[in-house]
């Protein structure tokens, strides 16, 4: 084998190693990118689920023997006072004998009021 032929063979070897390394780096980078992306993707799904549950969060009002009560979801309830108080994730108070004013996560933002 002539020196020229040997050099060509060596160059082809280095090119093959280079290609192999580039592919390896690409594969490792791809796997790393997926691993990094997954928590971000999951957090997006979690946020959507949370937004959905909040958009349904409501409060109801009734009278009991001990006075007016507000009841929210998951069995949360509290007596209505004449100062704003918390009922679950809602804010409510008794405005007069028969009316309550409240704000819940399901209320749409309304800047006109």
């Amino acid at each position, binding site marked *: 084998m002539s020196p020229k032929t040997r050099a060509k063979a060596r160059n082809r070897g280095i090119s093959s190693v280079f290609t192999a390394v580039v592919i390896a780096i690409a594969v490792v980078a791809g796997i790393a990118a997926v691993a990094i992306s997954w928590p971000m993707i999951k957090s997006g799904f979690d946020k959507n689920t949370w937004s959905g549950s909040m958009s349904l969060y409501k409060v109801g009002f009734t*009278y009991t023997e001990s006075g007016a009560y507000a009841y929210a979801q998951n069995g949360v309830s509290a007596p209505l006072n004449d100062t704003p108080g918390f009922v679950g994730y809602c*804010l409510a108070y008794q405005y007069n004998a028969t009316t309550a004013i409240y704000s*819940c996560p399901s209320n749409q*933002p309304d800047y006109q009021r």
Partner: protein
Amino acid sequence: MSQILEELMTEPIGFIIAMVILIAGAVGGLYGYWAYANHVTLQNYLWPIAEVVPYKGEYFLAVINTGYEPFIVKQIYLSNGSTIHVNTKPLTHNQWFTETTNQLPIAVRVCSAVEPSVCTVAPVHGWSMAEVGVPRDAILVVVETTIEPAVSINGPPTPIGNPIGNPIGNPISGHGRGPIGSPIGNPIGLPINVTVLHEPSNCHWSLTWYGWAGGSISHTGNLTFLIQPVYGDVHFIPINLLGPNKASPGSVVVFKIFCTWW
């Protein structure tokens, strides 16, 4: 150019340089993406809820952390374009922050307590009014002293400086010291606003009811109470009260205090 590239890819020194550049690029890119992903992930887990209700001529604002990522309330944006800087202590799961403002709050800015550069803006939810429901087997009785709305009385056209109804030029005598110099008069054509307290709130009243179940109550002043249980109409015998003489289950009846003073 292709010869230089060929040199780089085939000679050992060029190979090493190319590898270093490639690895540094890959690591740098991954690090940048990791930092971005962390930022977005943390931001996605900031779950503030902001509520507002009108209260005594002002606005009562409350911000709650419904998530598990602690955050700090940094700013409150008001409807007139101004901003209130607050910087609260970190709010953890289900903790509230409240504030009273004289302008309507429209949004709040909260930042992660772990990484203060990660922030999100939450809109403030508007409020609603609801009738407090009466159970189907009950009647809500509201006894109240009412204050009538302001009444405008157009007084007789008397000149300023004279009391209402006083003929012009006739001085009014005070107690022992001659005519009153400047009695209060009603300017011509201007209405007088009068607020009328319907009846005194210290009046003693009583209410008796009968129907499926009977009972009675005596009290002084305002009172709201529940008659329960009731099935079918209930009839009332009010004393010193003005209101209906019967009511159905699940309804609200309002009595006005009405005392006759002798």
